[in-house]
């Protein structure tokens, strides 16, 4: 029953609320009980339980109680931060927790969080039968009730569309060119997402069958009537170009156009001023780039944005870079110059650059060393004895 792996903030918050002045006696009792419950459970008991029982089962009452605690804790948190408890959203909660419990941990999932129990505890199926031990769902005895119910509904929709078509044909209004179904930029749910939605495991064969049937539905002429049913099983993709921030094109006192931007890679940070002078001279930290990057590879990295867009020799670069090694500094400069170049380019060229990967910051960072191993991946030499 005690939640060992997940730190719900409700518990710790309860403890901190203990220390603060505004206190409800019932609340403190409840939190002390909860805390007491957690402390009582010993490590040995945990080990035994985990081996035998498999994944933990949370009852509906437990989830409900957690939800109540979460709401109360949310109001306390709003009070603490001096904001209105009524209009305290999840973003506000995240912000407040990050402020109250600053964490330097690298893994985002390891940091303190406070979310609604629905998001934290994995969705589990409630008991599927009643007191008389008769199952609720009519497809219970198929074994995959949710999957088959979706397929059944899908087929029902197809029949409905065909009936509608017959109806129109009878009236004489049937036409081939009708308004197409508008799905926007979306894709079908993956197998994992579908499993999460239906709270049931699905085999690959079943998933393919489902997708096949959906595609068949979309191929029917009058499927636009069932668009909301279809969209329930599609995920919207965000258009990446909508998020591009193009740096400003400024002009200095001599009328020369220039733009500034930053870039980073691993632990290097740099800032670049790109001037449209036509001389092609590059200065890094006050030194000539030939002297700062004696290696050809680094200079090639620096050259790549210009070479790709065909703007070699047109621009002047003035850069400051710090941190990291020579390769990561070169990568950071490349990113910064690509971003700065955006303000001189058209939309199509900018899209080309994005597809070439010039505008994507490289997410690779040094992996941490784990205890019990020599490095991030390398294990100690295995000795037989």
């Amino acid at each position, binding site marked *: 029953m005690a939640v060992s792996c997940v730190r719900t903030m409700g518990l710790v918050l309860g403890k901190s609320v203990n220390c603060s002045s505004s206190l409800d006696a019932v609340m403190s009792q409840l939190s002390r009980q909860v805390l007491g419950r957690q402390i009582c459970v010993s490590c040995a008991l945990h080990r035994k339980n985990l081996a035998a029982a498999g994944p933990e089962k949370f009852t509906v009452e437990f989830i409900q109680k957690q939800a109540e605690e979460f709401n109360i804790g949310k109001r306390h948190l709003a009070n603490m931060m001096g904001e209105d408890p009524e209009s305290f959203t999840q973003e506000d909660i995240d912000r407040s927790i990050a402020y109250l419990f600053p964490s330097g941990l690298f893994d985002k999932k390891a940091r303190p969080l406070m979310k609604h129990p629905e998001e934290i505890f994995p969705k589990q199926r409630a008991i599927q039968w009643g007191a008389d031990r008769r199952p609720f769902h009519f497809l219970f005895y198929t074994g995959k009730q949710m999957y088959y119910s979706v397929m059944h509904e899908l087929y029902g929709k197809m029949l409905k569309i065909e009936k509608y078509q017959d109806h129109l044909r009878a009236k004489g209004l049937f036409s081939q060119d009708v308004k197409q179904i508008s799905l926007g930029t979306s894709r079908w749910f993956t197998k994992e997402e579908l499993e999460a939605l239906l709270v049931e495991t699905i085999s690959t064969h079943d998933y393919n069958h489902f997708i096949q049937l959906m595609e068949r539905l979309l191929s029917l002429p009058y499927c636009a009537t069932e668009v909301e049913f279809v969209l329930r099983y599609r995920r919207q993709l965000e258009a990446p170009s909508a998020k591009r921030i193009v740096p400003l094109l400024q002009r200095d006192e001599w009328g020369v156009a220039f733009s500034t931007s930053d870039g980073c890679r691993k632990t290097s940070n740099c800032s670049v001023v790109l001037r449209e002078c036509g001389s*092609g001279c590059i200065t890094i930290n006050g*030194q*000539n780039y*030939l*002297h700062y990057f004696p290696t050809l590879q680094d200079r090639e990295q620096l*050259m790549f944005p*210009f070479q790709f867009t*065909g703007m*070699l*020799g047109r621009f002047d670069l003035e850069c400051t870079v710090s941190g990291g090694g020579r390769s990561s500094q070169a990568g950071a400069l490349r990113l910064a110059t690509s971003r700065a170049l955006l303000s001189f380019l058209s939309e199509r060229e900018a899209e080309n650059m994005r597809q070439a990967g010039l505008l994507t910051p490289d997410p690779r960072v040094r992996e941490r060393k784990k205890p019990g191993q020599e490095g991030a991946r390398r294990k100690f030499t295995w000795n037989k004895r």
Partner: protein
Amino acid sequence: MALQRLTFRLRQTVTHVRSLHTSGCTQQQEAVAVESQPEPFSVFRTQENDPGCQTEKHIGQHYTLPSAHINTLFPHGLPWRFKQRVKTFNEACMMVRQPALEVISYLKKTDFSKPALRYLFYGPKGTGKTMSLCHTVHFCYTQGWLVLHVPDAHLWVKNCKELLPSSYNSSRFDQPLQAAEWLRNFRITSEQFLSKIKTKQRYVWTKRESTEEGSPLGQLVDQGISRVKCSSDVVGAVMKELRLQSGQPESNFHLAVAVDGVNALWGRSTIMKQDKSAMDPGELTLVYNLRKLMQNDWIGGAIITALSQTGSLYTPKSVYLPQELLGERGFDYMDPFIPASVSNYSEKEFESCCLYYMDRHWLQHPQSQTEEGKKEIIFLSNRNPRMLERICAFL
């Protein structure tokens, strides 16, 4: 590449002219062919192979060094990569550049009755200081001067395998191997002068060996090469004789002292004495004698030097100015001197270099011959001669 097309067109006219068969006027045809012959390569190559006759309009063009000159004059003087290039292309082509031309013009106007002037080539790494020095040395050679060329003074202050206490002066140290090698090369460069110059003093090497007054310099040099133990003192003696005799009315030679990496003479050395204490370069006989030669108290010649950071010890990579590389002592010693700054290629020189490589079929990559490729090469090398050469080596 309009220039390239021009040369191709002219080459075609030459072959066309040559292929005409005529019985009576073959001589006329030959005359015409000879006339149009110099034109095809005039953009990056010049036929003016005498450094004395080269002027500003030859700047950026390559001239060929005759192989006979190279064997006599440069047994040890040329940079290693240049020697490889000469071997690959079967010809030694050097670019005429402004700093070298400037120094050559001053050399043409030297007054041999005044003390020797000191010229110093300086500049960032890889811009062509050593090559300019070699160009000037070639000029001196064609004018009939006696050239005393020390290819790299840094070789004398590091990696010394054998160090002997000097017999002449007990506080100094000898380097027999380096001295003997230098004497061997000196013998090759100054073949014609060795029999003409006579020593003015008697030198005693050991109880049984000595060089009498009035013996030819060649004998002195041979003594140093055969008796390696006293070769450093021989070097000192040679330098002293030449210094005293140049500019005298009876000796009809002019002395050109060319030293590359002159900042080694006043820098630090990695050679350690027996008790592991650091050695000051002034305690080495060779360096001591060379320093005396650097002094402008002799007449009848010139001193041409070049700085070098590449081989220097304990200097940061970014320094290239004379003050920083020579140090205080060196600068005071060399002051006053005439500086000549050597910098990266200009656009014209860069174009000329690329045309030369294309003519020699050195640039094999198809992209490297287009305009875009040129721009990329300019970016990657920043028109630095050494970088350009290294990049083009694998294109």
